[in-house]
Protein backbone atom coordinates (compact mmCIF):
# COMPACT_ATOMS: atom_id res chain seq x y z
CA UNK A 1 0.00 0.00 0.00
CA UNK A 2 1.44 3.34 -1.03
CA UNK A 3 1.26 6.01 1.67
CA UNK A 4 2.65 9.52 1.91
CA UNK A 5 3.85 10.23 5.44
CA UNK A 6 4.99 13.76 6.20
CA UNK A 7 5.60 14.30 2.50
CA UNK A 8 7.62 11.11 1.98
CA UNK A 9 6.46 8.14 -0.07
CA UNK A 10 6.28 4.76 1.66
CA UNK A 11 5.21 1.31 0.52
CA UNK A 12 3.99 -0.41 3.64
CA UNK A 13 1.44 -2.89 4.85
CA UNK A 14 -0.25 -0.88 7.59
CA UNK A 15 -3.95 -1.69 8.00
CA UNK A 16 -4.54 1.11 10.51
CA UNK A 17 -3.00 4.44 11.45
CA UNK A 18 -1.81 2.94 14.74
CA UNK A 19 -0.06 0.16 12.79
CA UNK A 20 1.66 2.74 10.58
CA UNK A 21 2.92 4.73 13.56
CA UNK A 22 4.31 1.57 15.13
CA UNK A 23 5.99 0.48 11.88
CA UNK A 24 7.72 3.85 11.47
CA UNK A 25 8.53 4.02 15.20
CA UNK A 26 6.53 7.12 15.95
CA UNK A 27 5.99 7.05 19.69
CA UNK A 28 4.86 9.43 22.39
CA UNK A 29 1.73 11.09 23.69
CA UNK A 30 2.79 14.41 22.18
CA UNK A 31 2.07 13.41 18.58
CA UNK A 32 -0.88 14.67 16.54
CA UNK A 33 -2.06 12.87 13.43
CA UNK A 34 -4.09 13.75 10.36
CA UNK A 35 -5.08 11.68 7.34
CA UNK A 36 -6.05 13.38 4.10
CA UNK A 37 -6.45 16.70 5.87
CA UNK A 38 -8.63 15.45 8.72
CA UNK A 39 -7.58 15.19 12.34
CA UNK A 40 -7.47 11.61 13.58
CA UNK A 41 -7.65 11.75 17.36
CA UNK A 42 -5.32 9.62 19.43
CA UNK A 43 -8.20 7.41 20.55
CA UNK A 44 -9.22 6.70 16.94
CA UNK A 45 -5.85 5.72 15.50
CA UNK A 46 -6.25 2.00 16.14
CA UNK A 47 -9.60 1.90 14.41
CA UNK A 48 -8.75 4.25 11.54
CA UNK A 49 -8.19 2.07 8.48
CA UNK A 50 -5.71 3.33 5.93
CA UNK A 51 -6.26 3.18 2.19
CA UNK A 52 -3.89 3.16 -0.72
CA UNK A 53 -2.46 6.65 -1.44
CA UNK A 54 -3.58 8.16 1.86
CA UNK A 55 -1.66 11.24 2.97
CA UNK A 56 -0.64 11.08 6.60
CA UNK A 57 0.74 13.92 8.69
CA UNK A 58 2.43 13.31 12.04
CA UNK A 59 3.20 16.49 13.96
CA UNK A 60 4.91 17.18 17.24
CA UNK A 61 5.60 20.25 19.41
CA UNK A 62 8.21 22.64 18.13
CA UNK A 63 9.60 26.04 19.05
CA UNK A 64 7.37 28.85 17.81
CA UNK A 65 6.63 32.52 18.15
Amino acid at each position, binding site marked *: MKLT*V*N*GEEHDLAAPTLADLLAL*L*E*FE*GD*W*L*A*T*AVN*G*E*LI*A*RADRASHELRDRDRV*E*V*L*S*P*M*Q*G*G
Partner: protein
Amino acid sequence: MPVFYGTEIRSRLLLGTARYPSPEVLTEAVRRSGTDIVTVSLRREAAGGRQGGAFFELIRELGVHVLPNTAGCHSVSEAVLTAKMAREVFATDWIKLEVIGHHDTLQPDVFGLVEAAGILAGEGFNVFPYTTDDLVVAERLLEAGCQVLMPWCAPIGSAMGPQNMPALRAMRAHFPDVPLIVDAGIGRPSHASAVMELGFDAVLLNTAVAGAADPAAMAAAFAKTIDAGHAAYHAGILEPRDMAVPSTPIIGKAVFT
Protein backbone atom coordinates in the same frame (compact mmCIF):
# COMPACT_ATOMS: atom_id res chain seq x y z
CA MET B 1 -3.76 41.53 35.74
CA PRO B 2 -5.22 40.71 32.33
CA VAL B 3 -7.89 38.06 31.89
CA PHE B 4 -7.88 36.10 28.66
CA TYR B 5 -10.92 33.89 28.10
CA GLY B 6 -11.64 33.73 31.80
CA THR B 7 -8.08 32.98 32.87
CA GLU B 8 -6.23 35.60 34.90
CA ILE B 9 -2.62 35.91 33.79
CA ARG B 10 0.33 36.78 36.04
CA SER B 11 2.32 38.75 33.45
CA ARG B 12 1.72 41.21 30.62
CA LEU B 13 4.56 39.69 28.62
CA LEU B 14 3.88 36.70 26.38
CA LEU B 15 6.99 35.00 25.08
CA GLY B 16 7.64 32.99 21.94
CA THR B 17 9.91 29.95 22.18
CA ALA B 18 11.67 30.07 18.79
CA ARG B 19 15.22 30.93 17.82
CA TYR B 20 16.90 30.61 21.21
CA PRO B 21 20.52 29.42 21.14
CA SER B 22 19.69 26.47 23.42
CA PRO B 23 16.88 25.01 25.54
CA GLU B 24 18.74 26.22 28.62
CA VAL B 25 18.75 29.81 27.37
CA LEU B 26 15.06 29.55 26.54
CA THR B 27 14.30 28.27 30.04
CA GLU B 28 16.26 31.07 31.65
CA ALA B 29 14.63 33.71 29.45
CA VAL B 30 11.16 32.44 30.37
CA ARG B 31 12.10 32.49 34.05
CA ARG B 32 13.57 36.00 33.99
CA SER B 33 10.69 37.37 31.90
CA GLY B 34 8.14 36.30 34.50
CA THR B 35 5.87 35.32 31.61
CA ASP B 36 2.82 33.21 32.24
CA ILE B 37 2.19 32.31 28.58
CA VAL B 38 4.54 30.88 25.98
CA THR B 39 3.75 30.30 22.35
CA VAL B 40 4.68 27.06 20.64
CA SER B 41 4.22 25.48 17.25
CA LEU B 42 3.68 22.12 15.60
CA ARG B 43 5.89 20.67 12.91
CA ARG B 44 6.40 17.35 11.16
CA GLU B 45 8.09 14.78 13.37
CA ALA B 46 10.74 12.58 11.80
CA ALA B 47 10.01 8.85 11.77
CA GLY B 48 11.56 7.38 14.87
CA GLY B 49 12.41 10.91 15.99
CA ARG B 50 12.13 12.23 19.53
CA GLN B 51 12.66 15.96 18.97
CA GLY B 52 9.10 16.89 19.73
CA GLY B 53 9.07 14.86 22.91
CA ALA B 54 12.11 16.63 24.34
CA PHE B 55 10.60 20.03 23.59
CA PHE B 56 7.23 18.95 24.96
CA GLU B 57 8.86 17.97 28.26
CA LEU B 58 10.74 21.27 28.42
CA ILE B 59 7.52 23.24 27.90
CA ARG B 60 5.67 21.24 30.54
CA GLU B 61 8.44 21.87 33.05
CA LEU B 62 8.17 25.64 32.53
CA GLY B 63 4.85 25.57 34.39
CA VAL B 64 3.21 28.29 32.28
CA HIS B 65 0.18 28.43 30.00
CA VAL B 66 0.79 27.18 26.49
CA LEU B 67 -0.53 29.14 23.52
CA PRO B 68 -0.09 26.97 20.42
CA ASN B 69 0.08 28.80 17.11
CA THR B 70 -0.77 28.10 13.51
CA ALA B 71 2.39 29.81 12.28
CA GLY B 72 3.13 29.40 8.62
CA CYS B 73 -0.41 28.46 7.65
CA HIS B 74 -1.48 30.19 4.46
CA SER B 75 -5.01 28.83 4.14
CA VAL B 76 -8.10 28.52 6.29
CA SER B 77 -8.17 24.73 6.08
CA GLU B 78 -4.50 24.46 7.00
CA ALA B 79 -4.92 26.75 10.00
CA VAL B 80 -8.08 25.01 11.22
CA LEU B 81 -6.50 21.55 10.98
CA THR B 82 -3.31 22.73 12.69
CA ALA B 83 -5.38 24.24 15.50
CA LYS B 84 -7.24 20.96 16.00
CA MET B 85 -3.98 19.01 16.07
CA ALA B 86 -2.48 21.49 18.54
CA ARG B 87 -5.50 21.17 20.81
CA GLU B 88 -4.99 17.44 20.99
CA VAL B 89 -1.28 17.69 21.74
CA PHE B 90 -1.38 20.50 24.28
CA ALA B 91 -4.82 19.85 25.77
CA THR B 92 -5.79 23.51 25.54
CA ASP B 93 -8.57 25.35 23.75
CA TRP B 94 -6.30 28.34 23.25
CA ILE B 95 -4.96 28.95 19.77
CA LYS B 96 -2.89 31.80 18.37
CA LEU B 97 -4.47 31.95 14.95
CA GLU B 98 -2.22 32.93 12.08
CA VAL B 99 -3.40 32.85 8.49
CA ILE B 100 -0.55 34.36 6.55
CA GLY B 101 -1.42 36.29 3.44
CA HIS B 102 1.89 37.49 2.10
CA HIS B 103 5.21 35.67 1.85
CA ASP B 104 7.46 38.71 2.29
CA THR B 105 5.65 40.75 4.92
CA LEU B 106 3.97 37.80 6.68
CA GLN B 107 0.95 40.07 6.79
CA PRO B 108 -2.21 38.32 7.97
CA ASP B 109 -4.75 37.30 5.35
CA VAL B 110 -7.52 39.05 7.21
CA PHE B 111 -10.30 37.49 5.13
CA GLY B 112 -9.06 33.98 5.82
CA LEU B 113 -8.39 34.95 9.42
CA VAL B 114 -11.99 35.98 10.05
CA GLU B 115 -13.28 32.82 8.37
CA ALA B 116 -10.94 30.54 10.34
CA ALA B 117 -11.70 32.36 13.59
CA GLY B 118 -15.41 31.76 13.07
CA ILE B 119 -14.90 28.06 12.40
CA LEU B 120 -12.63 27.58 15.40
CA ALA B 121 -14.79 29.61 17.78
CA GLY B 122 -17.70 27.42 16.68
CA GLU B 123 -15.69 24.37 17.68
CA GLY B 124 -14.98 25.68 21.15
CA PHE B 125 -11.58 27.24 20.60
CA ASN B 126 -10.46 30.40 22.41
CA VAL B 127 -8.95 32.24 19.49
CA PHE B 128 -6.09 34.74 19.80
CA PRO B 129 -6.03 36.18 16.28
CA TYR B 130 -2.82 37.64 14.87
CA THR B 131 -4.32 40.50 12.89
CA THR B 132 -3.61 43.91 11.41
CA ASP B 133 -4.51 47.17 13.16
CA ASP B 134 -7.64 47.56 10.98
CA LEU B 135 -10.74 48.39 13.01
CA VAL B 136 -13.18 46.82 10.58
CA VAL B 137 -11.29 43.55 10.63
CA ALA B 138 -11.22 43.75 14.42
CA GLU B 139 -15.01 44.14 14.49
CA ARG B 140 -15.40 41.10 12.24
CA LEU B 141 -13.11 39.05 14.47
CA LEU B 142 -15.16 39.94 17.53
CA GLU B 143 -18.35 39.05 15.65
CA ALA B 144 -16.72 35.74 14.72
CA GLY B 145 -16.32 34.93 18.41
CA CYS B 146 -12.87 36.24 19.35
CA GLN B 147 -12.63 37.77 22.83
CA VAL B 148 -9.00 38.87 22.46
CA LEU B 149 -7.31 40.73 19.60
CA MET B 150 -3.64 40.62 18.70
CA PRO B 151 -2.75 43.35 16.22
CA TRP B 152 0.74 43.52 14.75
CA CYS B 153 2.73 46.71 15.17
CA ALA B 154 5.23 45.82 12.42
CA PRO B 155 6.05 42.73 10.34
CA ILE B 156 6.98 39.56 12.27
CA GLY B 157 10.64 39.50 13.27
CA SER B 158 11.34 42.92 11.77
CA ALA B 159 12.11 44.67 15.09
CA MET B 160 10.82 47.87 13.50
CA GLY B 161 8.59 48.79 16.42
CA PRO B 162 5.18 50.48 16.18
CA GLN B 163 4.62 51.71 12.62
CA ASN B 164 1.17 53.17 13.13
CA MET B 165 0.64 54.54 16.61
CA PRO B 166 -2.61 56.34 15.69
CA ALA B 167 -4.11 53.06 14.50
CA LEU B 168 -3.13 51.29 17.72
CA ARG B 169 -4.49 54.19 19.76
CA ALA B 170 -7.76 54.02 17.82
CA MET B 171 -8.00 50.30 18.46
CA ARG B 172 -7.70 50.87 22.21
CA ALA B 173 -10.32 53.62 22.06
CA HIS B 174 -12.79 51.58 19.99
CA PHE B 175 -12.52 48.41 22.04
CA PRO B 176 -12.09 49.59 25.63
CA ASP B 177 -13.17 46.28 27.13
CA VAL B 178 -11.44 43.84 24.78
CA PRO B 179 -8.07 42.49 25.88
CA LEU B 180 -5.55 43.75 23.32
CA ILE B 181 -2.11 42.24 22.85
CA VAL B 182 0.45 43.69 20.47
CA ASP B 183 1.91 40.76 18.58
CA ALA B 184 4.83 41.02 16.18
CA GLY B 185 7.31 43.71 15.27
CA ILE B 186 8.57 44.79 18.69
CA GLY B 187 12.34 45.23 18.58
CA ARG B 188 13.36 46.91 21.80
CA PRO B 189 11.98 47.63 25.26
CA SER B 190 11.06 51.21 24.38
CA HIS B 191 8.77 49.87 21.62
CA ALA B 192 6.99 47.69 24.15
CA SER B 193 6.71 50.56 26.58
CA ALA B 194 5.26 52.81 23.88
CA VAL B 195 2.40 50.43 23.08
CA MET B 196 1.75 49.72 26.75
CA GLU B 197 1.49 53.49 27.32
CA LEU B 198 -1.35 53.44 24.77
CA GLY B 199 -3.24 51.15 27.12
CA PHE B 200 -2.60 47.77 25.55
CA ASP B 201 -3.00 44.86 27.92
CA ALA B 202 0.05 42.86 26.95
CA VAL B 203 2.83 42.35 24.42
CA LEU B 204 3.86 39.14 22.66
CA LEU B 205 7.57 38.96 21.86
CA ASN B 206 9.96 36.44 20.47
CA THR B 207 12.82 37.53 18.24
CA ALA B 208 13.66 40.66 20.23
CA VAL B 209 14.46 38.42 23.19
CA ALA B 210 15.71 35.27 21.49
CA GLY B 211 17.99 37.25 19.17
CA ALA B 212 19.53 39.41 21.90
CA ALA B 213 23.13 38.85 22.93
CA ASP B 214 21.84 37.92 26.39
CA PRO B 215 18.24 36.72 25.96
CA ALA B 216 17.55 36.24 29.66
CA ALA B 217 18.71 39.77 30.52
CA MET B 218 16.68 41.17 27.64
CA ALA B 219 13.62 39.25 28.81
CA ALA B 220 14.00 40.85 32.23
CA ALA B 221 14.39 44.29 30.65
CA PHE B 222 11.20 43.83 28.64
CA ALA B 223 9.31 42.70 31.73
CA LYS B 224 10.22 45.89 33.56
CA THR B 225 9.39 48.26 30.73
CA ILE B 226 6.07 46.55 29.98
CA ASP B 227 4.99 46.95 33.58
CA ALA B 228 6.24 50.55 33.57
CA GLY B 229 4.30 51.38 30.41
CA HIS B 230 1.16 49.83 31.84
CA ALA B 231 1.50 51.75 35.12
CA ALA B 232 2.13 54.99 33.23
CA TYR B 233 -1.02 54.55 31.13
CA HIS B 234 -3.15 54.16 34.22
CA ALA B 235 -1.36 57.03 35.97
CA GLY B 236 -2.55 59.39 33.22
CA ILE B 237 0.07 60.53 30.75
CA LEU B 238 0.53 64.22 29.98
CA GLU B 239 -0.33 65.22 26.42
CA PRO B 240 2.39 67.14 24.55
CA ARG B 241 1.96 70.90 23.88
CA ASP B 242 3.42 73.19 21.27
CA MET B 243 4.52 75.88 23.75
CA ALA B 244 6.60 75.91 26.88
CA VAL B 245 4.87 75.93 30.27
CA PRO B 246 6.96 76.99 33.27
CA SER B 247 7.04 74.22 35.81
CA THR B 248 8.21 76.51 38.63
CA PRO B 249 5.57 78.94 39.99
CA ILE B 250 6.00 82.61 38.99
CA ILE B 251 4.28 83.82 42.18
CA GLY B 252 6.80 84.84 44.82
CA LYS B 253 9.65 85.16 42.39
CA ALA B 254 12.28 87.61 43.64
CA VAL B 255 12.75 90.88 41.79
CA PHE B 256 16.40 92.01 41.78
CA THR B 257 16.29 95.02 39.52
